[in-house]
């Protein structure tokens, strides 16, 4: 394990690792997500810090046994705080040749490969594309492909069938339990407790005793295989991390975001109406919120993306917290309605779980390329606040923050998450519910203006002088009947007004209202060396890789600092000054430099844009390389003398 520190304080025969990255890979039907989830849960409750990366096949029904059908789950467990699922797995569990083919290149040099030997027959080898020039199957277990790796060939299918036979399980059914064999084996090798998994199997498959028995038997067989088979070698241990004291749970980004929305409704004292149309990778939020109706949450699965945001905006008009959840293509469709929300100045939350684009692009893969559409993707001058979450657990707080801004300033807000955060998980120290902010805002209840004749009247566009928010008068309130619409209106009265000066004034007011949000943005935190010349500035899910990269460079004495922004519009008020303090600013993004462009344009500062657009999160090593290159260029700059 080249990248893993072997702690020398061995306990008994077990060797201690500071962290371990395992990747479970197999066919979509092999239950790899479940296996990875179990390994994660056990490690979480054991007290490790961890981070996960589920990697779903792009095609839901890719032919079995093919590389396109490979589903994988990578988890990093550690005895210290970590933020990423690890650059390179230390261990690859490959349930079939296709999994080996798809993922071997990810494994660290010298890493451990555990294969299900039974699957390496001519048929599966051909399906995976392990063939020679005359289309004859070639077995990578025998041809030297795996030289330089530690290889454990385990006949998982047949061993599983063997232990299931006495239970009366048919061989075909028994085969389905082989993922539990793999889990058992890995659990032994890395000293994971077994009771929680056995308990979990009992509960999960309570309705089908035979399946429960088969899975338990397979799990135990895998565990015992590790204990009794010499070739498996030593056991390793990853000790619990010393995380800050508190109560923890393990959570994915989409679940945290859903709970953040539930919390936002509670903190705003408002019922929620979610309008949504199924889309990967956002659908889980619709599913999750649909489960929590007792929080006063209504979910409408709309006929299309446009209707979904229409439902949400209608609900906001009626006095609910209106929310719509989607991914990039859906944001494009909602664009016109979001502009309407800008014009009628009502709270509205648009959640974009970004994925690879353009068009259908890479629906199951991550990307952060919707920053531009979030900032600019509307007709006319339609500014709105944009907030981004940085980690799975942070999605909870980001959802509350987005809702807070929407309500306080009566504006649509776009919250950006991405596929990596959505499906990735990490331990989350639960917040004290009582410490969460009150984000409620009052509805208008009475008239707010007196006309020239002394009559009291209601002006729907009479603004709060500080926030510039207009009153939110909801149907059912006597005396405050009013009409809103997409046509330009006069400030104050809200009556249709096409006069040139008025349109300019309203445009500026809408812009000033969004700018007013800066008043609530806390100072940007900088971590790392105070005297660094190089700053790495991030947004969104790059946080994890940046954090790991900066820590690792600093461990070897490189001076570097980092900052991360959650508010993309408006930008933090201190950001320009902050960036000017460094000689080099690196902005890593899973897009072609969208924030970098914005920063250059806004502050006239040169930015080193580091772009990755492969449907995958950054490896910390890629960011480390950018840091090194920036530092090297500093030397070159000074050698060249001042110019």
């Amino acid at each position, binding site marked *: 394990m080249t990248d893993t520190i072997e702690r020398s304080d061995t306990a008994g025969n077990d060797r201690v690792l500071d962290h371990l990255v395992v990747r479970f890979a197999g066919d979509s039907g092999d239950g790899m997500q479940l296996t990875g989830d179990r390994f994660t849960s056990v490690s979480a409750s054991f007290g490790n810090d961890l981070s996960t990366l589920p990697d779903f096949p792009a095609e839901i029904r890719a032919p079995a046994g093919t590389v396109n059908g490979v589903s994988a789950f990578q988890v990093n467990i550690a005895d210290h705080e970590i933020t990423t699922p690890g650059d390179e797995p230390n261990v690859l569990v490959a349930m079939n040749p296709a999994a080996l083919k798809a993922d071997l290149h990810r494994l660290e040099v010298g890493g451990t490969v555990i294969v299900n030997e039974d699957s390496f027959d001519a048929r599966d080898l051909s399906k995976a594309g392990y063939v020679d020039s005359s289309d004859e199957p070639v077995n990578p277990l025998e041809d030297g492909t795996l030289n330089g790796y530690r290889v454990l060939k385990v006949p998982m299918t047949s061993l599983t069938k063997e232990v299931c036979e006495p239970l009366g399980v048919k061989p075909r059914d028994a085969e389905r339990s082989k993922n539990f064999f793999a889990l058992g084996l890995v659990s032994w090798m890395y000293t994971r407790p077994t009771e929680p998994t056995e308990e979990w199997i009992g509960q999960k498959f309570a309705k089908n005793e035979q399946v429960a028995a088969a899975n338990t038997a397979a799990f135990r067989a895998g565990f015992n295989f590790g204990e009794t088979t010499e070739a498996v070698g030593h056991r390793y241990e990853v000790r619990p991390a010393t995380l800050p004291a508190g109560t923890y*749970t393990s959570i994915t980004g989409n679940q945290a975001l859903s709970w953040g929305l539930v919390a936002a409704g509670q903190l705003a004292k408002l019922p929620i109406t979610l309008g949504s149309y199924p889309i990967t990778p956002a659908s889980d939020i619709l599913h999750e919120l649909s489960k929590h*109706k007792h*929080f006063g949450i209504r979910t409408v699965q709309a006929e299309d993306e*446009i*209707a979904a945001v229409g*439902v949400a905006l209608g609900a*906001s*008009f009626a*006095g609910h917290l209106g929310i719509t959840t989607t991914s990039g293509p859906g944001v494009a469709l909602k664009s016109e309605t979001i502009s309407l929300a800008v014009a009628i100045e009502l709270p509205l939350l648009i959640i974009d779980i970004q994925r690879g684009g353009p068009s259908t692009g890479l629906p199951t893969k991550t990307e952060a390329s919707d920053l531009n559409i979030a900032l600019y993707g509307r007709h006319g001058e339609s500014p709105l606040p944009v907030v981004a979450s940085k980690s799975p657990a942070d999605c909870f707080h980001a959802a509350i923050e987005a809702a807070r801004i929407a309500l306080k300033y009566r504006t649509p807000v776009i919250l950006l998450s991405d596929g990596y955060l959505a499906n990735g998980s990490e331990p989350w120290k639960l917040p004290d519910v009582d410490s969460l902010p009150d984000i409620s805002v009052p509805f208008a209840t009475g008239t707010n203006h007196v006309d020239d004749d002394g009559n009291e009247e209601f002006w729907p566009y009479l603004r709060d002088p500080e926030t510039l928010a207009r009153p939110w008068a909801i*149907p059912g309130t006597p005396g405050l009947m009013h009409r809103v619409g997409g046509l330009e209106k006069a400030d104050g009265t809200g009556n249709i007004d096409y006069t040139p000066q008025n349109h300019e004034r309203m445009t500026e007011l809408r812009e000033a209202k969004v700018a007013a949000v800066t008043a609530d943005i806390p100072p940007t935190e900088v971590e790392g060396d105070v005297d660094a010349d190089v700053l790495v500035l991030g947004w969104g899910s790059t946080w994890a890789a940046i954090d790991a990269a900066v820590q690792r460079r600093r461990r070897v004495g490189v001076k570097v600092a980092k900052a991360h922004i959650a508010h993309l519009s408006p930008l933090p008020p201190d950001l320009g000054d902050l960036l000017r303090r460094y000689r080099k600013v690196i902005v890593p993004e899973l897009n072609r430099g969208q924030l970098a462009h914005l920063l250059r344009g806004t502050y006239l500062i040169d930015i080193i844009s580091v772009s990755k657009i492969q449907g995958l999160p950054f490896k910390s090593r890629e960011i480390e390389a950018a840091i090194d290159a920036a530092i090297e260029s500093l030397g070159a700059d000074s050698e060249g003398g001042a110019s």
Partner: protein
Amino acid sequence: MSTAQVAVTTKKDWTSDQEVRWCPGCGDYGILLAVQQLMPELGVAPENTVFVSGIGCSSRFPYYMNTYGMHSIHGRAPAIATGIATARPDLDVWVITGDGDGLSIGGNHLIHALRRNVNINILLFNNRIYGLTKGQYSPTSEVGKVTKSTPVGSVDAPFNPLSVALGAEASFVARTHDLDRKHMQETFRAAHAHNGASFVEIYQNCNVFNDGQFSDITKKTNRENMMIDLVHGEPILFGPDRERGVMQGTDGFLHIVEVADVGLDQILIHDEKNDRPSLAFALARLNDDDHSPTPFGVFRNIQRSEYAQAVSDQVVAASERRGPGDLGELLASNGTWTVG
């Protein structure tokens, strides 16, 4: 929509201070007047009423009503109204749309609002033309229509709005026209009383870009011969002496017949409550142009589960079963562990 303790209102209470800006002579004026006059009779309060529209001449309507209102974007009013009604089943929600807004750009939202049976009243002003954009043919224009965008005549077949609504499982479907205030009001009253999505097609004259489209039917002197009044439970008869009627032939189709030829007992009895929409559909297709006898009134009026209430009921049931939501409980629901 409780009718209890609603203060008595007059037309004035329902009229906003905004200047009405349709072309002089537009059929929309008559519809607005009919609605403003009717509202005080419905036992609802202006503050509990919401008018939502899309884009088009008709969609200016909400500005003239002294209620809550939203002049939204092209075609999306049914979706926005669905959000309002779902969030607040206590409100009285009306959608004002036109043939372009409702059947072209917003067709998808219209059919799904009807399918869901959201408790909204949809008034579709059908003038078979785009008025606001100054005269292009619409999805209800007859084939061969010569307009600015079809100088040698349109080639695509039109929708029959009532067929679309019935095909979309609408539970209330009716037709009226802009020249008969009383008929409009009776139709709107029935639409309002219906619990669920109500769809009313209004033949509306655009005197600027499509003048006289419906005159052969709706002009006073033509009405007796050309308008077939549908009355629930009554034989479907028309003509100055009610000498003509609608009969279902042995071929299964509907035919216009002379009562004297077939006998009154052969005339179809109108049944708006029939669960099966086939006869309503056949009635909706009785005329295939604007120059032949055309049925007016309520085609279909049945009860089925209303969407907003059903959604609300699930929320109430969940709260009763699980108690009010507890955030702390939710956050711990994945299982927790303690450090330190």
